C-alpha cells in the first residue's frame, strides 16, 4: 500500500486529508508540524507528502527544502496545502521543490486524482 505523509498543524485538516486518502486506498501518516514531518520522513519511506505552509517549529518551505536533501526523496511528489494564494509564496514553494500547490479547502475528488497521478 502506498504511503502518504500529511503535515499540518490543524488537526481537522489532517483528519480530512487522512479521511479522503485512506478511503481511496492509501496509508496516511500524520505529522503536526514541519519538524514532526521531517522526523517521520527520515524514519520511513513515503510515496507522497502533503504539507501546510504556515506551521510552528518548521514551516512548509523549510520542510520541503529539508526533505529534498534526504536520500531517495529528490523526486518524491510534495504538495503544498495552504490558505496562501499569493504568487510570491507559490514561487517560494516551487523553488524549494514543491510539485504542486492547492489552496484550502481542497476538493476531495481532485486530491485523490492528483495522488493517483503523482504516485507511480
Amino acid at each position: 500500500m502506498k504511503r502518504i505523509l500529511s503535515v499540518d498543524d490543524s488537526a481537522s485538516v489532517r483528519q480530512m486529508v487522512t479521511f479522503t486518502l485512506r478511503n481511496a486506498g492509501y496509508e496516511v501518516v500524520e505529522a503536526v508540524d514541519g519538524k514532526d514531518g521531517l522526523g517521520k520522513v527520515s524514519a520511513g519511506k513515503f510515496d507522497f507528502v502533503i504539507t501546510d505552509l504556515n506551521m510552528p517549529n518548521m514551516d512548509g518551505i523549510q520542510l520541503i527544502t529539508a526533505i529534498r536533501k534526504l536520500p531517495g526523496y529528490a523526486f518524491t511528489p510534495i504538495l503544498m496545502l495552504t490558505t496562501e494564494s499569493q504568487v510570491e509564496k507559490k514561487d517560494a514553494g516551487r523553488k524549494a521543490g514543491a510539485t504542486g500547490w492547492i489552496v484550502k479547502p481542497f476538493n476531495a475528488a481532485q486530491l485523490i486524482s492528483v495522488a493517483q497521478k503523482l504516485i507511480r
Partner: protein
Amino acid sequence: MAKQSSGNVADVLDRATGKLQMLARDSESRIASVAKGFEGLATQTDKILSLASAIVDSLESESLRSVLPKVQTLGTSARLFFEERLNATTGILSAVEGESKLLRQFSQVTRRQAGIALKTSVLTMFTNIEVGRLGSEGTGFQHLAQTLSEFSKTLTQDTEDLARHIEGRKPAIEATRRSLSSELPGLQEEFARIDIHLGDDMAALQSGLVQLSEAPVQFRACVENIAQQIAQVVSAIQAHDITRQQLEHVQEAFDLITSKMRRPEKSKTAAAQELSRTYASLKVQIYQLQNIQATVRTWTSQIRTCMEVILNVSASDVAGISPLVLAREQEVSSKLVHIEQLEHEGQGYSERIRQTVGGRSTLMLLVGEHTEKSKLVRHRLHLLSLNSIIEASRLGSQADAVFEIAKSISDISIEWGKVTEQSEVTMGEILGLVEQTSGLMEIFSDAGAEPLGEAQAQTRIGLAELQTTAAFAARQAHEIQIVTEGMQAMSAGVGNSGNLLEAAYGHVDSVLKTIEDLKLQMELDYPHVKRGFNIAEMEHLFSSSYTTEMERDVMRAALHGMPLPVAQQSFEGNTVELF
C-alpha cells in the same frame, strides 16, 4: 463617562484576546469532535452504499434484466390464450346452432326419402301383379320388378337407419346448444374476469419490475449526491482552519496594539498618531471579526445540512432496496401462481367444450355414407326408369299398365334425384361446419396452450433469478438494518454538532461588541482618530501577516470605509495547481 486611556484600551484588548484564545481552543476541540462524528457517519454511509451496491449489481445482471420482458410475454400469451378460447367458444356455439338447423333439414330429406321408399314398395307390388298378368310375355319385366323390390328394401332400411341416428343426435345437439347458449354469457364473464385479473396482475408486475429496474439509476444518483455532500463537509471542516488562522491574526493584531499602547510616547503628537493607528487597527479587526461571524455561519450550516443529508441515506430508498427486491419477487411468484390458476380454469372449460362437440363424427360418417348411397340409388333408379320404358315399348299394346309403372319409376327417379341434391347440399354445409369447428377446436387442444406454457416456463426461469437476488438482498438487508440503526443513533450527535460549533463561535459576538464599544468611545473621546491614520501604512502593517485574499479584502474595505465584503465560501473545494 471617563475618557479611554491608553492603558484602559490595552486592558480591554487583553481581555478580548483572552476570550478569543479560549474560543480558538474550544472550537478546535469541537471541530475535531465534529470531524470524528462525520468520519463515523461517512463510514457507516459507505457501508450502506456498499451493501446496496452489491444488490444493485445483482439487479443489473443480464438474466435479471430479462425478467420484465419474460413477464410481459407471459401476460401477452395468457391474454391471447383466454381471448382465443372466448372467441372459439362463441364460434362453436354458432356451429352447433348451424348443425341443429341442418339436422332439421336432413330430417326433412329422410322423411321424403322414406316417402319415396314407400312409393317404391307399392310400385314393386304393382309390378309383381303386372308380371303375373303378362305371364311368359312379362319375363323381362320380372327382372325389373325384382330389382325394384331390392331397392325398395335397401332404401327403407337406409332411410330408417339415418332417421334413427338423426333423431338420436338431435337431443344431444339440442342439449349442447341450450347448454352453450346458457353458459356462454357466463363463460364470457369468466373470461372477461380472467382478462381483468390478468390485466391487473400484469400492471402490478410491470410497475413493480419497472420500479426495480429504476433502482440502479436511483442508487447511482444517491451515491453521487452522498459523494458531493461528503466532499462539501470535507471542505467545510477545512474552512475551520481558515477561520482559526483569521482569529489568530486578530489576536496578533490585538497584541500588537496592546504593546504599542503600553509604550510611553515621546510627544503629544506621537501619542495622537498612535491613537489614530489604534483606531484604524480596531476598525480592521471589527471587520475581520464580522467576516469571521459570517463565514462561520456559512460553514457550520453547511456541515449541518450536508451531514443531515448523509444521515438520511439510512432512511432513503437506497437503504430500502432489499425490501423492494423481496416484495417484487413475492409479487412475481404470486402472480405467476395466479396466472397458472387462471390457465387451469381455462383448461377446465376447454375440456367441457371438447366433450360437448365430440361425438358428432359418427353422425357425420353416417350422413356421408347415406348421401353416397343416395347418389348410387339415383343412378340406379335412372337406369331402372330407362329399362322399364324399353320393356314397355317392347310389349307394345299389352303394356299400358307397364307404361304407367315405367312412368312412376321415372317420376320416383326424378324426385329421388332432387332429394339427393338437397341431401348433398346439406351434407356440404355440415362438412363446412365440421371443418370450422375442427379449426376452433384446435384452440382447445394441447398445442393451443403451448405458447402460454413456454412463456410460463421462461417466467419461472426469470423468477428463479429474481429469487436468488431476493435471497441475497435479504441477507444484505439484515446488515443494512444494523448499520442503519447505528446511523440513527448518530443523528442526535449530528444535530448537535452544528449547534455546538455555533455556540463556540458565539464568543465572537461578545468580543466584537466590546471592540465596537471601544471604537465608538474613541470616536467620542478623540474625534481626530477617524482621520489621523495613514491607509498605506496600515495596509503594510497587517497585510504581511494575512494568508488569505479574503482577509486582505476585508482589511482594505475597513480602511477605505467600504461595506464588508460578502463571505463567499466555496464548498466545492479548490483544485490542485501542479508546477
